[in-house]
């Protein structure tokens, strides 16, 4: 008797996302969330130390100036920018806006997203700094 008369299922390798640019960029975009998550944890720790008093807060600020932490922040910033740029580039797929019966062209949707980012950044700057930079 030979092998069974069944269809063959090809295994999915762990490395499926290597060797194809589209898949690699997708997985890199997903992995940026690790750095965003790390930033969120650091921010929570900041609040925690702030609640414990001045000394603990200042010790935490000193900890943040360590070379490793600065490198982490630079990498996290790069990850956040990569995520934002690739995500905004995909926005027209989800947002189909019609004005006067015509579809708003995709570049205009992308530009509107950057516009919204700029407005949100200015509002946050205004809240934090008390003035618009």
């Amino acid at each position, binding site marked *: 008797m030979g092998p069974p008369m069944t269809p063959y*299922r090809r295994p999915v390798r762990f490395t499926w996302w290597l060797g*194809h640019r*589209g898949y690699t960029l997708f997985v890199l975009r*997903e992995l940026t969330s690790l750095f965003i998550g790390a930033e969120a944890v650091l921010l929570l720790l900041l609040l925690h130390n702030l609640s414990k008093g001045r000394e603990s807060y200042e010790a935490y600020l000193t900890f943040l100036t360590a070379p490793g932490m600065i490198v982490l922040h630079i990498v996290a910033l790069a990850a956040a920018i990569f995520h934002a740029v690739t995500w905004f580039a*995909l926005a027209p797929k989800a947002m*189909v806006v019609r004005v006067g019966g015509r579809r708003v062209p995709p570049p205009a949707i992308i530009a509107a997203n950057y516009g919204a980012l700029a407005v949100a950044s200015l509002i946050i700057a205004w809240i934090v700094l008390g003035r618009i930079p």
Partner: protein
Amino acid sequence: MPDPTITLEVMRYGPGRDETPTYQSYRVPYREDWVVLDALNYIKDELDGTLTYRWSCRMGVCGSCGMMINGTPKLSCAAFLKDYYPSAVRVEPLANFPIARDLVIVMDDFMENLSRVKPWIIREDERPTSEGEYRQTPAELDRYKQFSMCINCLLCYSACPVYALEPHFVGPAAIALAARYNLDSRDRGSAERRDIVAGPDGVWDCTLVGECSVVCPKGVDPAGAIQQAKLASALDWMKSIVLPWGRR
């Protein structure tokens, strides 16, 4: 000078004969106007009649001849040899599907998903034909026309890593076809499709890799259909919270 030739490395699998697929090389004449499907037909006619594959129209309409050509899902009737010559061309069955034999895949899963999204016009009450057709403006046609171009070739499923990793995912083409009917002004069936489109195996499985739209030979943009269905599903959910007594 001898006539030029090109090599095809074709994946072979015989159920009951092979434990795992193997590759077989065939040397076929190289012609500038030949596509991979022409080369496969040459093999079938002249070299090896046991080679099994699906094809029908040879003009990108029937959607039968999808295969992995050098690792990319393509219609073999639209993959010209001249784009690969003089290198060898590797031909494999569409990825992410079980292989029935050689280049033929098992597509039962897709056929089931396709019927689950009810890809036909659903009316609350049918009008008798004597009352005439359901009329539609060009703008109304334009809303869904792109998604109606799908030929069920399954290249999008082959390009989708989510479908590879989550075999229960309804998948790009079936969701694009659900969107095609949901966006049709004559249709009243979006609530009937909601359980499957917005359900646990529906649009929220999609992580927007976007490759389905890249490989689509008809410009359907299933990734767009899925993201728009996510937006519609989220709005439906919000409406049900804000207006729980409203018509869903």
